[in-house]
Structure formats: structure tokens, C-alpha cells
């Protein structure tokens, strides 16, 4: 497998120039009344999608920018059509 990542500044490059930065979870939550569950959900919890997910990457050996991409976790290929599998989650709240 050879990962390539398309950096918005430097273009398509060897994936090892980059560092993975987690699933896209949106901006930092407001601190007021943030419950331990909600905090933990933001900081630690993942959907672990086997499919396309939106996620962050950092061009560590290159221009040093952070940017989100869509990638299929079952193939490691970047996706241009930009649709995440399971984006809403079937059952986002705990049962």
C-alpha cells in the first residue's frame, strides 16, 4: 500500500510526509456545562468508520499546514467525491 495525500499547498505527495490528525469532529465545544461524557466524546471517541471518513492531516515534512480530506479507510485512497460513510451515524446517542 502506498498512501498519497493531496496537500492543498504542495499537491499530491507521499503519505509519509504527513501526520494523521484524527477524525473530523468539528470545532472545540464550549466549555460551559460540558459533561465528562461530552468531553470524552470529543476528545477520545471515534466512529472507526470502515469506509469513507473526513479526517485531518498535517504536512509535517512539507509546508506545515493542517487540512481535512476524505479517505476510504478500507483502501487508503483519497476520495474526491467527498461523502463520508455513516456520516450521521445510525444511532449517535447511546442506547
Amino acid at each position, binding site marked *: 500500500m502506498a498512501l498519497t495525500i493531496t496537500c492543498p*499547498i504542495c499537491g499530491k505527495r*507521499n503519505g509519509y510526509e504527513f501526520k494523521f490528525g484524527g477524525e473530523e469532529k468539528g470545532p472545540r465545544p464550549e466549555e460551559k456545562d460540558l459533561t465528562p461524557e461530552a468531553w470524552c466524546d470529543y476528545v477520545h471517541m471515534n466512529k472507526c468508520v470502515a469506509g469513507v471518513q473526513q479526517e485531518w492531516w498535517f504536512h509535517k*515534512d512539507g*509546508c*506545515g499546514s493542517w487540512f481535512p480530506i476524505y479517505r476510504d479507510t478500507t483502501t487508503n485512497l483519497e476520495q474526491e467525491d467527498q461523502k463520508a460513510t455513516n456520516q450521521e451515524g445510525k444511532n449517535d446517542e447511546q442506547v
Partner: protein
Amino acid sequence: MKEIQRVSPVVFKSTPVKTKTRDNWEVVMEYSEEGDGPFLVDLSHRPRFDLQDSNLAAQKPFGIEIPETPGICVLEKGVLANRMNGTQVSLYNLDSDDTAVMPDESGYTDVTESTMCVALIGKNVFSICEKLTALDFMDPQRKAPFLFQGPFSHVPCQIVTLSKEGDISGLVLTCSRGYGRDMIHSILHAGEEFKLTPAGENRFTNWIKEL
């Protein structure tokens, strides 16, 4: 007290035959047995600046129009301006007449000391590069001068290709100063089969004039 002398992160084993003192640097103008190229020239003493501004379009460092697209460079009046991203440009003063002094504005930072800087010029330079990096210098879509920000001998570098034309090919490479020793070792090792030799600043000055 003794005279203060600056030390370059680049050390060659070759014997200097002509040197010049400039801004406390002892710049080697020529080494013995420089050969026919390719050449490796230490430019770590050349002033280098970082300019960051959210509105780079409004900036004209040393009167240079900064290229709009990241990865594009311009060489004007001896100053190389390399567009790095939306808000950042690196400026190398490659002119040995040493005219460019950093503008006294907050967006500028003198980063001469941050990096080691060498030029790799002459024939086969890209054959040397392909032993050290997977970056594609010969991509026909990239027209010199252009900037790569990427790994070279495993270390993040800024590499500006100034010419891809056969025997006058050449590039300027900077990386963190601390890597100087090992980077030079890597480049010379890779260049051995192509008879790469260290050369003095004159070699670079003459070469850049011909571009």
C-alpha cells in the same frame, strides 16, 4: 579579545584556496581541486528572511512582486522569493554584493541562522537527488524556478530548482541548521559516483549569472 568569527554549519574537508571575510563570515570563494562538476557550494552565510503576512499581495520585499501560487519562485536582483503558502514567503539573498538588508517590519524574521543552505549545481544534480528523495524534480509541469517543501535525505527541506537544463542544472537547498553535518555527508555520499565536489562561492556566483 579575539576577533569574532562566525561558523557555518557546513564543513568541507577540501582545502580553501581563496577566502573573503564578509560580515564576520569567512567565505570560501574557491577550493582546490574543484573538478568539472557537479558542485556543492555552501551558501549558509547568505542572508535569508521569513516573511509572513495575511495580505502578502500588498508586500513588495526588495521591490519584488511575490508570486501568487505556492511553489512558484522568482529570482530578481539576486533575491530569490519563494512562495510557501497563502501567507508566507521565504527570501534568499543570493547576490554576493550583499545589498538586501531585512526591512524593519514586523512580518519579517531573519532566519539566516535557522538553516544550512547549499547549492547543488552542474551536471547530474538530479541523478544525485533521486538517490536522496522521492520528490520529482523532472516533472515537466514544473518550470524553474520552483520550490519544493519536502523531505530530502529524510529531513524536511526547502529546495528551489533554478535550472533543469542539462549541465547548467542546479538548485538551492535549505534545511534545519543542526542537520548540516549529516546532510552534507548524505549529499556527498550520493554524489560520489558523479564526482560531486565542494566548490567555493565563486562557482555559484558565476553559475547564477549564466541563468
